């Protein structure tokens, strides 16, 4: 549903055949990845059965499933995890593209405005207060409060007279993130070892054990946020030309930036709160796609969402099956792929002296 919706938005804002072809093929790839990721695992379920089980459980069809055990594995263990991966990947990919456009900086990601450090701080408080054992929801809620609070503080610090200069925002972001990071470390040094391990597990970023509760928690805010952010793609294009150009065609760059920052903070915070800090998705996905489709946000934003979802699904699949029957955190996989790419990018931009 999400994908069809995304496709609609893109097709409506861009009437070039080439771009719509790319979107449709990405939708196809994403669907394929979702089915494959659901089917593969410690217990291998045939693809056809996987599709049948999913459709049956949504009450759309009434296929006969031979192996009853498959039903619970597919629908209650793997499929919600795949959906969470899709949502989180889409959110991170999109917000990465948005941030890079907003800050006109290829190295920007949601971490710039303190989302990650704030979320970590929230999470560590939830752990320290032993709230994670009380309810599954405490950790995400604390994480999202932490993320939004730190984003708000950074924004307020950087703004003067209604204007928020990009450079000030980045510097304020670094300062506040470092400060919050220190507070997190301070708490970590004072809590029990099992709690530290719990935090570590969260902070690496993992999709392990994500269930329908996580889907329910994140689906609505992420989907709405994605639609809103994609609807700002024209404004983001204008902002890419610079503040002066935006002003002269009637777009208040400060107001637009504030609105876009607000929604991308929420979307990122929600994603981080259900999956922990999964690094590099927001960095590399938009970059690869920008090389394919160019800088136009009307196509880049929806594609980054789709691409982010595909990338995270694949990384999560690798994380699950690489040391079967055990698994590693998906954040480790994305970082193992992402960090070398980041260095390559850094090297390239230094050599060429220009931003991508």
């Amino acid at each position, binding site marked *: 549903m999400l994908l069809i919706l995304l496709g609609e938005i893109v097709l*409506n*804002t861009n*009437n070039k055949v080439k771009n719509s072809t790319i979107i449709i093929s990405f939708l196809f790839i994403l669907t394929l990845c979702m089915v494959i990721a659901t089917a593969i695992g410690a217990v291998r379920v045939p693809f056809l059965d996987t599709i049948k089980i999913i459709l049956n459980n949504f009450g759309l069809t009434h296929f006969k499933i031979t192996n009853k055990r498959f039903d619970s594995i597919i629908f209650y263990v793997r499929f919600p995890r795949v959906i969470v991966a899709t949502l989180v990947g889409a959110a991170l990919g999109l917000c990465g593209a948005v941030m890079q456009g907003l800050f*006109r900086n290829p190295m920007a990601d949601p971490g710039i405005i303190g989302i990650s450090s704030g979320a970590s701080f929230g999470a560590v408080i939830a752990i320290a207060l032993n709230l994670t054992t009380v309810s599954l929801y405490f950790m995400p809620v604390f994480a999202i409060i932490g993320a939004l609070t730190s984003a708000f503080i950074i924004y307020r610090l950087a703004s003067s007279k209604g204007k928020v200069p990009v450079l000030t925002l980045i510097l304020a972001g670094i300062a506040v993130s470092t400060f919050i990071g220190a507070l997190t470390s301070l708490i970590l040094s004072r809590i029990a070892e099992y709690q530290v391990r719990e935090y570590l597990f969260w902070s690496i970023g993992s999709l392990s054990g994500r269930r329908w509760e996580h889907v329910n928690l994140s689906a609505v805010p992420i989907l709405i946020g994605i639609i809103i952010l994609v*609807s700002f793609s*024209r404004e983001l*294009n*204008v902002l*890419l*030309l*610079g503040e*002066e*150009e935006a*002003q*002269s*065609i*009637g*777009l*208040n760059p400060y107001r637009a930036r504030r609105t876009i920052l607000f929604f991308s903070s929420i979307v990122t915070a929600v994603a981080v709160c259900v999956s922990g800090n999964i690094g590099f998705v927001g960095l590399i996905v938009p970059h690869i796609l920008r090389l394919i489709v*160019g*800088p*136009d946000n009307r196509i880049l934003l929806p594609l980054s969402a789709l691409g982010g979802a595909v990338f995270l699904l694949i990384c999560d699949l690798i994380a699950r099956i690489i040391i079967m029957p055990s698994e590693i955190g998906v954040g480790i996989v994305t970082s193992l792929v992402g960090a070398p790419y980041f260095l390559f990018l850094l090297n390239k931009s230094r050599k060429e002296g*220009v*931003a991508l």
Partner: protein
Amino acid sequence: MKEKVIEIRNLSFSINGKEILKNIILDVYKGEFIGLIGPNGSGKTTLLKSINGINKCKGTIKIEQQDINQLTDREIALKIALMNQNTIIGFPFPAEEIVLMGRYPHLKKMQRISKNDRDIANKYMKFTNTFILKDKPITNMSGGERQRVLFSKVLVQETEIILLDEPTASLDITHEEQIFKYSKEMSKNGKTVITAVHDLRIAAKYCDRLILIKDGRIISDGIPKEVLTSENIKIAYDVKAFVYENPFTSLIDFYTYDRKNLDKNIHVICGGGSGSQIIHYLFEKGYRLSCGVLQYGDTDFINSEIMGIDIIKCMPFNDISEELMRKNIESIMKSNLTILTNMFIGKQNISNLIAARYSNDLIIIEDTPIENRDFTGGEALNIYNELKKNAKVIKSKELQKFV
């Protein structure tokens, strides 16, 4: 009277306590093509950005009778388009997409770019000769191409008022005047164009009206001839200049100079262009100069007149009268030095040669032998050879050694 499109009253603007604009009062009428001139930092850009509401100022600005503070950003963008100075775009958008961004204020949220919008973009891209560039990324364009694309974007906004901030700064002469030509055409079609411009010759050539700003104040406002005077240029740019009509193009031209005043008089006997460079050199050196007798229309006459030098004048194709001869001799006698240039000598100007006898000190410039320059049948030759006895005879390039 034409319709007033901009009315500015008592406009002031300060940044960090420093006043950039001071009490600006200005009326702009429909179809005018106005050049804002003035030295760097005089407030040209600030004034443009105030007119389209980017700078929040004291005082009132009315656009088509509406106070600018009561208009939203989008409403302003539908009335006024601004082309910023030196816009560098770091992202490889194709030209057509850049130009289409000018349609932004016309589109509602989520409204698609329509066929009509594309037609408008194509129309103006053809007008500015950028249609062939429509798929070329702006990052790969030359300065001239980029400025024309950005200018198209401003036109695509389809506003009544167009503000340009030094649209041709840093362009080579091939592209320098194009945007002014296009702007002139737009103003003829009823658009009001205000452009900041640093090249005074171009400003005078294209604009109907010039506004000279210095330290945030309008110090002159009117047609180019009224505004571009030596006095105004001295006040605004702190440079001495003669303003004259270029005889070749009949456009306003400038001759800027820097000279001290020396207490020494030099009289130059010249004609037919033989004296122009010498007079120019002596003028910049700071001598008090006179020259003559020269006929109206002579090259030396025109050039000396631009520099405001005393000329003893006679009508063309006339012999020099006794009265003028007497004046010439007086002038020569008053001068510490007389210079006789490498001029041709005929019946009409032989009396100039005779007058040279009265010089206190004489330098004769001889680049070509007198025999080749004498059109009097030997009369001049005799006088000339007699003059040479009491004079320094030099080549024109040696002049610097003697004065």
